[in-house]
């Protein structure tokens, strides 16, 4: 075997999906010569499932990626074709942006962004093995005999590791429909001793839009005022399209029930565990027999294509049956399937192998990000890619690793959950996973995370200036809302009383006014003092009102956090041998050793650990301090 390398880099990123793109972009912008190696240069940033970004909790993640200086938000802002802010009727903490993407434009724009990133080098090839010297990764081996050198490698292989696609009884190996799986790389990970598990996910059929009777469906238009993902985007310029909503029916359900033996999910052919929150239509029908219909979304794949994504109808039934089922839905009775839906099984590595920096404990310099860690979703993948990329760069630069705390970000929640609890189904983000979701609003991710992005070198001067000026406007606005009061004698008081049909008392401040559930920011905006109004944006106002709304809760939460943190932050020395702690059972020692928590808080979240073991551990840690 050759020992020389064809090319030298600081960092190599394997896989150009949503995790790989963020990782490579971050490394390169942090000054590292970075190679991004992909099986196909034509599918960079491919949306292999539904062509959409964001949603509740996922939209939060994209906002956090953006605040740190990641690229996903910027790309979707330029390629989104239908923007909607979800949960608009609810409080700002649980609102989140979502956008349909033009799948092809997204790919093109992502590749364009990467190609114009300094220090970033795209390479096409199939990676078959790692080069490792004394437990430290030093490069990778490609199928075509090329060898690339780097002291840090980020593996973002998505569903490609031993990928196996099922449609009915037929199966074939593939990373995504139409692309080869990575078999050799999966074998090499197994050889290195990584604990490998199997997960499953699926997609619905894609339909020919020319054969759909659109009038039958309820239309779901875009927001009139699209809310962008990136703090750098002023407005969304591109034209917005409409999605459509429909339903399955009993006839569809009956056919599915009658043909369950044809589904690899129910015939025992599929071994991997699928996500409960993204069930196949087979699962929905079997698990909720009392439901007479299930909702479907007809989502356009782009401006220039008639391909339509049938969201809500993920299936791995045989093609003929998929076509028959589609025809049973009113409005789709003539509709042709362009690509059948399929289920894909793939390898993932138990993420409890990872440090909080997403580095493996088995091989120094090797980082894992995205679906390989057991997550699902572009956004979940992208945020791991960003963090893995940042840490790979810091690693080769000999700097201290970077992590985010649970109480300051969804990204912190996600990584902490992964490395302490592992996964037993594809992991998706939910707002309820965050203990402090009132404090993790989509519109405050800049305040929470941009200072980190700046320190890491991921936010340019102009971007930082934008950030500072927004924070500055918000702080002035807050002062103004608290200080501006209207007396009963004023015309504003009269006008506002009339508008919200309430007695406002002798005098009321804009701040207290903003807390009425019936007062929306657009009413408030009209009553801002002229001096403030001239430079305040609508989004500034919404954020400021949100801050006021949750102020009391957040203060209580922060007090709780401090109390918990006092214990949670009791550090567990990296060289502590859990076997030395008397009173810990063998099983508890094993669980602790697998996760190697860095502090007591992480130990508390290890799945299966008993309260008894925790008190023994805490007791040990506290007594050992003295």
């Amino acid at each position, binding site marked *: 075997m050759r020992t020389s390398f064809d090319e030298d880099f600081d960092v190599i990123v394997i896989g150009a999906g949503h995790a790989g793109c963020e990782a490579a972009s971050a490394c390169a912008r942090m000054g590292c010569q970075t190679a991004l190696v992909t099986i196909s240069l034509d599918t960079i940033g491919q949306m292999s499932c*539904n062509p959409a970004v964001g949603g*509740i*909790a996922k939209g939060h993640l994209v906002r956090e990626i953006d605040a740190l200086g990641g690229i996903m938000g910027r790309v979707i802002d330029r390629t989104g074709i239908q923007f909607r802010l*979800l*949960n608009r*009727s*609810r*409080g700002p*903490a*649980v609102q989140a942006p979502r956008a349909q993407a033009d799948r092809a434009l997204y790919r093109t724009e992502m590749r364009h962004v990467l190609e114009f990133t300094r220090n970033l080098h795209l390479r096409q090839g199939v990676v078959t093995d790692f080069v490792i010297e004394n437990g430290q990764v030093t490069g990778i081996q490609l199928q075509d005999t090329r060898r690339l050198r780097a002291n840090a490698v980020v593996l973002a292989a998505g569903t490609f590791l031993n990928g196996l696609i099922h449609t009915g009884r037929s199966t074939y190996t593939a990373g995504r429909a139409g692309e080869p799986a990575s078999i050799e790389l999966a074998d090499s990970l197994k050889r290195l001793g990584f604990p490998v598990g199997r997960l499953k996910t699926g997609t619905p059929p894609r339909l020919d839009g020319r054969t759909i009777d659109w009038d039958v469906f309820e239309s779901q238009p875009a927001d009139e005022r699209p809310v962008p993902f990136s703090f750098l985007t002023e407005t969304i310029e591109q034209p917005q399209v409409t999605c459509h909503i429909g339903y399955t029916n009993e006839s569809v359900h009956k056919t599915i029930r009658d043909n369950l033996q044809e589904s690899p999910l129910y015939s025992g052919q599929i071994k991997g565990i699928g*996500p*409960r*929150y*993204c*069930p196949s239509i087979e699962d*929905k029908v079997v*698990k*909720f027999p009392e*439901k007479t219909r*299930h*909702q479907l*979304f007809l989502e356009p794949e782009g401006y220039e294509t008639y391909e339509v994504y049938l*969201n*809500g109808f993920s299936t791995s039934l045989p093609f003929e049956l998929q076509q028959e089922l589609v025809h049973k839905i009113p409005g789709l009775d003539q509709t042709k399937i362009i690509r059948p839906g399929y289920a894909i099984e793939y390898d993932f590595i138990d993420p409890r192998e990872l440090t909080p920096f997403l580095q493996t404990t088995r091989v120094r310099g090797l980082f894992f990000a995205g679906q390989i860690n057991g997550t699902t979703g572009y956004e979940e993948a992208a945020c791991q890619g960003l963090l893995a990329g940042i840490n790979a760069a810091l690693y080769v630069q000999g700097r201290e690793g970077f992590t985010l705390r649970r109480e300051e970000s969804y990204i912190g929640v996600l990584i902490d959950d992964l490395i302490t*609890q592992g996964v037993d189904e594809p992991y998706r983000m*939910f*707002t*309820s*996973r965050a203990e402090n*979701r*009132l404090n993790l609003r989509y519109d405050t991710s800049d305040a929470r995370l941009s200072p980190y992005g700046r320190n890491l070198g991921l936010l340019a001067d102009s971007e930082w200036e934008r950030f500072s000026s927004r924070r500055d406007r918000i702080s002035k606005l807050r002062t103004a809302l608290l200080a501006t009061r209207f007396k009963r004698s004023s015309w504003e008081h009269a006008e506002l009383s009339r508008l919200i049909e309430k007695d406002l008392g002798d005098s009321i401040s804009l701040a207290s006014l903003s807390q009425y*559930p019936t007062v929306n920011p657009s009413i408030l905006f009209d009553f801002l003092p002229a001096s403030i109004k001239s430079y305040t944006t609508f989004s500034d106002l919404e954020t400021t009102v949100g801050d006021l709304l949750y102020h009391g*809760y957040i203060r209580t939460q922060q007090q709780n956090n401090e109390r918990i943190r006092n214990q949670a932050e009791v550090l567990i*020395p990296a*060289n*502590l*041998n859990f076997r*030395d*702690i*008397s*009173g810990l*059972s063998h099983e508890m020692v094993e669980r602790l050793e697998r996760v190697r928590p860095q502090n007591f808080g992480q130990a508390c979240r290890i799945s299966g650990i*008993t*309260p*008894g*073991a925790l*008190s*023994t551990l805490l*007791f*040990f840690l506290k*007594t*050992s301090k003295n």
Partner: protein
Amino acid sequence: MCDFSFEVQAAGTIVALSTPPGRSGIGVIRISGERALDFTRSLVRDPDFSPEPNRVTLKPIFDPDTLEVVDRAVVTFFKSPHSYTGDDVVELSCHGSPPLLLNILDVLLNLGARTADPGEFTMRAVANGRLNLTQAEAVRDLIEAQTHAAVRQAARQLGGELSKRLQPIKDVLLEIIVPLESSLEFVEDDLPEDIARNIEDNLFALSARIDEMADSFRRGRLLKDGLRVALVGRPNVGKSSLFNGLLSSDRAIVTEIPGTTRDTISEVINIEGIPVLIIDTAGVRPSPDKIEQLGIERTRRAIADADLIVAVLDGSLPLINEDEEIVREASSNHCVVALNKSDLESFCSNNAQRIDDNLPLVSVSAKTGKGLDALCAEIIKPFTAGYLDESSFVITNARHYDLLRRTSEALRAAQGLIQENVSEELILANLYEALRFLGEITGETTPEDILSQIFSTFCIGK
């Protein structure tokens, strides 16, 4: 490599006398840890001694210096992990002579055992996963329990009864949280109308149930801490004979309270399972005598600290102003009037007609014991109204009481927000707070638990 070279306090084999100090029928020495059996073998001078776990064996105990048999003890071996602490445990039931027990403990310490810190056996049980914190707290209460009723109560908690009782409450709370959370996480799924309507009713019922449980704390505290009852009255009205009468009528004297002041005597008696500390006070009267004044001062303090005052009057004599003054002062607290000396011919219950009709009044004879049961019943009455059913569960721990109270407060806050039509995430913030307080007793509910319930209840996902 490890810089923790100190000795972990939790290690080693620990030993302690686990029956109360003092002369008694039997004294139990408990040894817990890896070397428990080793030490026992030395103590009984039988290197092959391998007792069957959980069975008792009678063995001679030797003094290692003189090689004399000092006692014959019942030895019980509990093998790890099936022991109270989870370690190997040996219990030696010896004769309850303090010098003998101290001698045996000395021998064990010389062999290399360590004296257990207070609560260390329980601490080990928690550390070894034998007990959860609720159970550990119950054990502490069990040790401190003074009467049979309290013992029963503590024993029930030991079985995780409190957790079990709270589980259905927690389940209802989850039934409220799950649809609310689901409607936030998955906008496309609107809250089913019947569920939305029920949420408010459920919340109301829930906080009422929790309040009821929290209220039982009063009785719980009563069982654990007991009552302080002061007997007050003029000199020679028969306080001391009443005191003695109460004691002898009660055959279950539990302990003599040490450290009582020289001039107020107190004893614990058991009234229907409640430990009642009866304090006999110095008679209250104006006196130039310095010492007597001090005694009277103590009496006043006893009155101030008491949960209930028994104002003792001499029923064989007409009342005088001082009597009335005493009753008046006592009636600012819970108070029972005892009209003593009903055995005398001159006794006349009309003598009490100048006493406020609203005060409970009992005619007693300290001498014959007549009326003492009625007096006892009146003493506990104000504290037990509605709570004396021993089968009902009560909260005995102040921490649990506090947590339940806070749970209830959080639920009420959530109700208030629902009425104001506030957005779900704020309602949920309060509901999660309630769940967290409950979780401090029953164990944590993780976001995963809630998500699991959402997925099994609602058909989620596109």
